[in-house]
C-alpha cells in the first residue's frame, strides 16, 4: 500500500528526515513513536504534500503511484487522509458546506456521483451519531471556536466520512481526555478492514492500548531506528526513548 524508500527531507536547509525506510502493507495499522523533533510531523506533512518540505532524495509509492509527484488534492482523492495535529479554523465556512465539498471532491475522484444536500445530510448524520456528535456541529464554522477535543472529533468525522484507503493520524491523541481518546480509537478500529491502512503517530503508548498496531516503529533523527510488534510500545513506555535509542545506535 505505502512504500517509503530512503526518504531525505529538508526544511529551510535543515535535514529533518535522513534516509527513512518504511513499508505499510494493505490492511495493516502501524504506529510511529519517537521523541520530540524526531521528524514525525514532517513525515506526515511530506506524505500529504504540504509546501515547504524539500525532498532531497528517496521515493514514496502509494497504491502503485509515485506519491511525491502528485498534488495534495490528488493524493487526497486517491485515498490518502491526514488527521491534523492542530486543525485550522476556517471562519464563516459552515462545517456542513465544508464536509460536503470535501466528500464530493473525493467522490468525484473515485468516479462516484456527487451527493446533493439531502443525500449528504443523511450520510453525515449517520456517521455523526456513530461518533456521538451533535447536529449543531454542522452549523458552526469549520473548527471555529472548537475546543481541542471538538477539533479532533471533527477530524475523526472527516476520516469516517471520506473513507480513505490510508489514514495518517498525526498525534491525534495529544491533549485528549480518556473518553475522546477512546472515540479516536473506536473510529480507527471501526474502519479496520482489508484495503484500509493507517499510520498512527503518537508520543504515548496509551493510544496503542486501544488501537493495537500490527507494527511499531521508533523514529529518531529522521530515521526508523528500530521496529517491532505491539510489545515495543510497552517497552518504550517502561524504558523511555533514551534507552531504546541508545540500544539501537
Amino acid at each position, binding site marked *: 500500500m505505502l512504500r517509503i524508500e530512503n526518504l531525505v527531507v529538508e526544511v529551510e536547509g535543515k535535514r529533518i528526515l535522513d534516509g527513512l525506510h518504511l513499508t505499510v502493507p494493505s490492511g495493516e495499522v502501524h504506529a510511529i513513536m519517537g521523541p520530540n523533533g524526531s521528524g514525525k510531523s514532517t513525515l506526515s506533512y511530506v506524505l500529504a504534500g504540504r509546501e515547504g518540505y524539500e525532498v532531497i532524495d528517496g521515493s514514496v509509492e502509494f497504491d502503485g503511484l509515485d506519491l511525491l509527484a502528485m498534488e*495534495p*488534492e490528488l493524493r487526497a482523492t486517491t485515498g490518502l487522509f491526514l488527521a491534523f495535529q492542530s*486543525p485550522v479554523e476556517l*471562519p464563516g465556512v*459552515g462545517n456542513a458546506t465544508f464536509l460536503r465539498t*470535501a466528500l464530493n471532491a473525493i467522490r468525484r*475522484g473515485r468516479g462516484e456521483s456527487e451527493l446533493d444536500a439531502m443525500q449528504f445530510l443523511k450520510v453525515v448524520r449517520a456517521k455523526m451519531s456513530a461518533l456521538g456528535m451533535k447536529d449543531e456541529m454542522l452549523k458552526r*464554522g469549520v473548527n471555529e471556536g472548537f475546543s481541542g477535543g471538538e477539533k479532533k472529533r471533527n477530524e475523526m468525522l472527516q476520516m469516517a466520512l471520506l473513507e480513505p484507503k490510508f489514514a495518517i493520524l498525526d498525534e491525534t491523541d495529544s491533549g485528549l481526555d480518556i473518553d475522546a481518546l477512546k472515540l479516536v480509537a473506536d473510529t480507527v478500529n471501526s474502519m479496520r478492514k482489508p484495503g484500509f491502512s493507517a499510520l498512527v503517530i503518537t508520543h504515548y503508548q496509551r493510544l496503542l492500548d486501544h488501537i493495537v498496531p500490527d507494527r511499531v516503529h521508533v523514529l529518531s533523527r529522521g530515521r526508523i531506528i528500530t521496529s517491532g510488534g505491539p510489545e515495543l510500545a510497552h517497552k518504550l513506555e517502561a524504558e523511555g526513548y533514551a534507552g531504546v535509542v541508545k540500544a539501537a545506535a
Partner: protein
Amino acid sequence: MAAVAETLDTVQTVTDGGYKWGFETDIEMEFAPKGLNEDIVRFISARKEEPQWLLDWRLKAFALWKTMVEPRWAAVGYPPIDYQDAFYYAAPTNKVTPKSLDEVDPELLRTYEKLGIPLREQERLQNIAVDAVFDSVSVATTFKDRLHKEGIIFCPISEAVRDHPELVQKYLGSVVPQGDNFFAALNSAVFTDGSFVYIPKGVRCPMELSTYFRINAKSTGQFERTLIIADAGSTVSYLEGCTAPMRDENQLHAAVVELVAMDDASIKYSTVQNWYPGDENGKGGIYNFVTKRAACRGARSKVSWTQVETGSAITWKYPSCILQGDESVGEFYSVAITNNRQQADTGTKMFHIGKNTKSTIVSKGISAGRGQNTYRGLVRIGAKATGARNYTQCDSLLIGDQCGAHTVPYIENRCMTAKVEHEATTSRIAEDQLFYCRQRGMTQEDAVGLIVNGFCREVLKELPMEFAVEAQKLLQISLEGSVG
C-alpha cells in the same frame, strides 16, 4: 512553485478568459451624435417625448454640471475622461414600445437568455419581475399586470414620466438633487432609462422586483436613473444586476438611484455588480461612478443596501441613508472584490437625524492581484438624534502581496447620547487553511472560493435566495485560487 505564485497564476488564468458575459449583441441601434451639449440634452428629452418640466429640469442639471469639477478625492487613479468623446444615447431601433414580450426583438430576448435572464421563463416560472434595460432604453418589463392589480407601479422611468408624472415630479431629485455631485449632475442631464417603482400604502410587494442593466454599444455611457418609493407601511425587495461586453476602451456608467421610505415602510435594495472589469493589465473596463441614496423619511422606516461588487475597472459608490424619521433604520452590507488592476473606493454614508435611529455597516473588501480596495464611510450623528446607534465592521482580505486594502472611516457625532462602534480587521488566506482544504480533496480554486465565501457570509446571507447562489458563483469566478 510557491503557493502565492501559483495562486496568482490561477487568478490570472481565471480572469483572462473568465468574464463570460463579454459578448456583443449585433442589433441595429440609433445613436445621438457624439459629444455633450445642450442640444444633446434636448435630443434625449425629445426622443423620450418628455414634458417641458423634465426638459427644464435636465437643462438646469446640465448648467450646474458645467460649473462643477470631477471629484478627485477617491483613492482611485485614471486618465482624464473626455466627456465629448462618447455617445449619450443609444437605443435599439425598435420604433414601437413593446407592449408584451412577443413584440420584443428576438435578438434582445436571446441576449438576456445568454446572460442567464430568460425573460420568458422568468415570466412563467420564477417569482421575480424583471425590467431589462439595454443601453439607453428599457426593452421589457415582466409581470406588469399582476403587479398592477396590487396597485404597484413597476415600469421604465420614461414610461412613469408619461403615465405618472405627479409621482415622478414630486420625488425625482428629492433625495439626490441635480447639483449633488459631478456625476449626479451629469446623470440628471442625460439619464436615459432605468426603473420606477411605487408601492402603495400598506402593500407588501408579492415578488422580487429586478432590473437587469446591459451596456452593449461601443463608446457609450450608461446613465440610468432609478426611483423607488415605498409608501407608508409598504415593503419591497429590489434586485439589480449588470454586465457589459469586453472592450479595450473604458466606458462610463454614472447612475443615480433614489429611494424614499415613508412611515413603517421597508426597502431592501440588492446589487450584484458585474460590469466588465478590464483585462489583467487594466485595459478597458467600466468606470462605475454611481450615486445611490435613500431617504428614510418616515418614522420606523427601514432601508437595507446589500451590494456584491465584483466587476468594473473602477468603482466609486457610497449607497447612503438619510435617517430622518424617528427610529428609522439604515443598513449597508457590502462585498467588494478587486483583482488585477481593478480599483474600488466604496462604502456608505449614514446620516442620523431622527431620534433613536439605528445604522449597521458591514463591509468585506477582498483584494487580489494588483487590486486596490478602499472602504470609505461616513457616520454623521446630528445634535437632535438622541439615542442614535451605529455599528460598523470593516474586514479586509488580502490575496498575494501586490494588492492593497484601505479603510477610511469618518465619524462625526454631535449628540451625547449616541453610541458609535467601529471594528476593523485585515487578514490573509493562510497557507495552512488552503492546505487543509486541499488535503480534503479540494482544488486550490475550490478552496479559495470556500474560504472567500466564508469571509463574506455575513453579507451574502442578506441577499435574496435567488441572488445568493449567483453571487457565490461570481465570487468564485472573480477570484478563484487565491492566498497570501
